[in-house]
């Protein structure tokens, strides 16, 4: 139907098919009707950030040729047990529509969705071309579902099972891959604890010559790891199993040799229970490593330092705070190319702990790694001055997630709120997209955020603020805000309603244990019919209090699968 357009639809579609970013595609689809149509016919991958924002029928109607789907479900705070059981985000209704409309579906990537074994079996038999399944932070399924996938998906290239609430009934699922099956490129079962049949795994890895990602679970021993690596030197990403059994000298040498043959390896993880004594076996691999995930290995500072001396090209590092500030000094000294650092707490719930990391470690990293742009840092003490120094050294932060673990804790030297710390972050880091705040914070922090954080898209707030004004500043100032999650803050109806105009341009808002009431929520729901306003009540709470509120835009209307504990207003 082209009259005045410069070239035929087919050419436009061809050109547009080269566009991968869904945001670019979104922009393209808004240009004109022709472009909207060309875009929808050429799109093969759809990303749905909130499964309730749209229905599977609407998706299928608009995009006829989808081969790959990414879906995210529950609010992020469900990872921390703040969302009731059976909240929803079940994949099954989607699968039924996909089976009818996208029989050639190849990829499904789910985050925080509920998926049952029945759904996995349905998936396995409904899509003959199915290639890639990735489940992150999902729940509702067991290893029986994985067995169905292994049994039926003849063209599977990727099985990536990460950090899910999976019911691990045993390792026999791995033996379900037929002997004729050779296409697997990505296998990640680190999530599971049961023993798998090692012979079956060895044969599987041996015949899948294109395998580039292999992440084992803890039950796989060092000796078994060596046997696998001998047959898979092409691996680019390796997650070891347990790194702690006692090896004979000969076994150690063989392991080191097998690792040194892995010339393509750029990512290393696993290292469960790693004992420092065997880490030198990793040295040959370390020279090329760009991503090292030690967040399940409780290393000491000297052990980390020795290891990092061999990792000059590291861009991403995840560690436990057992490495302490001294370990982080070693990061600053050895890893000048570092872009991302995550420090997880080894003992998050033990308040007797007096070690872990402090502001000193973070500062040390910032001096040595000017390219740092992503940080997740759990600590027990912080100062405003330290954060100011850090962002001065590293002004390019895009993701700044600081968790001072004791709620409402001030600057431990000056005893002042941490307002100036986050003020420094938002003033200096103009590219900031994601911010998580913590410590003792007044409304001033949020004034700073509203005034300076013009590129901010995601904000997480807990135990902070003084009054409605704080949240109002954020709603008024952060024009690019898409996701806001708040817990245990003194923000009430005035704050909630100040965002009235804004919520339709956002993905979602979460507010729990704040001062919002049912009336406030009802008002919001009434004024903004295209928002779904859901309230989760706690047992025994005041009738008028809206304990947990989840607000999100949707073109699918209120959802029909909400459990009794979730009220849709």
């Amino acid at each position: 139907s082209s009259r005045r357009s410069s070239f035929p639809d087919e050419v436009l579609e061809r050109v547009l098919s080269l566009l991968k970013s869904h945001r670019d595609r979104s922009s393209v689809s808004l240009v004109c009707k022709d472009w909207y149509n060309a875009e929808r016919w050429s799109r093969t991958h759809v990303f749905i950030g909130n499964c309730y924002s749209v229905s599977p029928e609407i998706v299928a109607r608009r995009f006829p040729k989808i081969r790959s789907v990414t879906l995210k479900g529950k609010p992020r705070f469900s990872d921390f047990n703040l969302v009731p059981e059976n909240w929803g985000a079940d994949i099954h209704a989607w699968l039924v529509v996909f089976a009818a409309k996208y029989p050639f579906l190849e990829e499904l990537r789910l985050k925080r969705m509920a998926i049952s074994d029945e759904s996995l079996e349905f998936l396995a038999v409904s899509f003959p071309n199915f290639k890639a399944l990735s489940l992150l932070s999902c729940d509702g399924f067991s290893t029986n579902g994985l067995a169905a996938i292994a049994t039926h998906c003849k063209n599977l290239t990727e099985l990536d099972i990460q950090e899910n609430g999976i019911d691990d009934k045993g390792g026999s699922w791995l033996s379900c891959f037929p002997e004729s099956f050779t296409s697997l490129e990505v296998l990640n079962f680190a999530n599971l604890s049961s023993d798998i049949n090692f012979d079956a795994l060895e044969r599987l890895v041996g015949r899948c010559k294109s395998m580039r990602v292999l992440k084992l679970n803890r039950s796989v021993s060092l000796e078994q790891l060596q046997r696998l690596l001998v047959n898979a030197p092409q691996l680019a990403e390796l997650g070891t199993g347990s790194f702690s059994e006692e090896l004979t000298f000969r076994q150690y040498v063989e392991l080191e040799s097998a690792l040194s043959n892995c010339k393509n390896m750029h990512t290393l993880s696993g290292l469960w229970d790693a004992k420092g004594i065997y880490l030198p076996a990793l040295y040959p691999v370390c020279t090329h490593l760009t991503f090292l995930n030690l967040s399940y290995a409780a290393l000491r500072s000297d052990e980390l330092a020795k290891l990092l001396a061999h990792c000059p090209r590291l861009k991403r590092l995840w560690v436990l705070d057992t490495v302490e500030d001294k370990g982080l000094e070693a990061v600053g000294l050895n890893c000048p190319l570092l872009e991302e650092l995550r420090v997880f707490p080894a003992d998050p719930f033990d308040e007797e702990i007096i070690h872990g990391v402090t502001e000193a470690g973070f500062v040390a990293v910032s001096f040595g790694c000017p390219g740092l742009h992503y940080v997740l840092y759990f600590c027990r003490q912080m100062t405003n001055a330290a954060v100011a120094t850090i962002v001065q050294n590293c002004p390019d932060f895009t993701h700044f997630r600081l968790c001072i673990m004791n709620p409402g804790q001030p600057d431990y030297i000056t005893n002042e709120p941490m307002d100036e710390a986050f003020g420094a972050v938002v003033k200096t880091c103009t590219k900031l997209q994601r911010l998580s705040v913590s410590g003792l914070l007044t409304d001033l922090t949020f004034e700073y955020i509203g005034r300076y954080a013009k590129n901010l898209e995601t904000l997480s707030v807990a135990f902070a603020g003084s009054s409605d004004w704080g949240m109002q500043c954020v709603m008024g100032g952060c024009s690019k805000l898409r996701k806001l999650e708040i817990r245990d803050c003194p923000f009430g109806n005035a704050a909630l309603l100040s965002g009235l105009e804004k919520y339709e341009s956002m993905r979602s808002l979460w507010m729990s244990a704040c001062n919002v009431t049912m009336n406030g929520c009802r008002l919001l729901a009434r004024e903004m019919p295209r928002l779904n306003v859901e309230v989760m009540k706690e047992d025994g709470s005041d009738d008028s209090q809206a304990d947990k509120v989840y607000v999100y835009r949707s073109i699918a209307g209120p959802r029909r699968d909400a459990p009794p504990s979730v009220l849709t207003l």
Partner: protein
Amino acid sequence: MERRVNYENDLNLMATELSLGLPGCGDDEPQRKTNPSIRNNKRTAPEISEVSSSESSSSITMSGSDDQDSPPPAKEQVVGWPPIRSYRKNCLQSSKRNEVEGMGMYVKVSVDGAPYLRKIDLKVYRSYPQLLKALENMFKLTIGAYSKREGYNGSDYAPTYEDKDGDWMLVGDVPWEMFISSCKRLRIMKGSEARGLGCV
């Protein structure tokens, strides 16, 4: 908002009171003086989200927002804080449990000719001699001493175990820690079969 009102009334009295003593005892907390309304507006999460929560296993002992001068009692936990995924929490907990003597490591023990099996907790023992002595006591038999060359030669019994690979190994060959991590079950072999092992 009732709490805020209370607090401001208290502040008017307390702020002007002179007293001897370290900051933080009996006074309002010193860090609050920059913005007195902070404290009360910040809801103590435990009271709100924990009391009625059914999905968390953490426990709350925090007494209330009026309790400003003593540090929070020990073992206070807040639902979902610090924000760490359940998966990671469970991994850390199971690591710790494996180190601490909380979790038993029970394996079946069979003796050739005995009518039924027994179970023992391997975590209880620190060394091979301790384990062998316990087995001898349990089954009223003599296993004797281990030697690298001869195994348990001289004895009518040989203790063996099934390892992770499904192979039957002689107890005592590998370091204790390695044995503990790979032993799935024990079998005490008897008679000529047992004696034969010493000569292999």
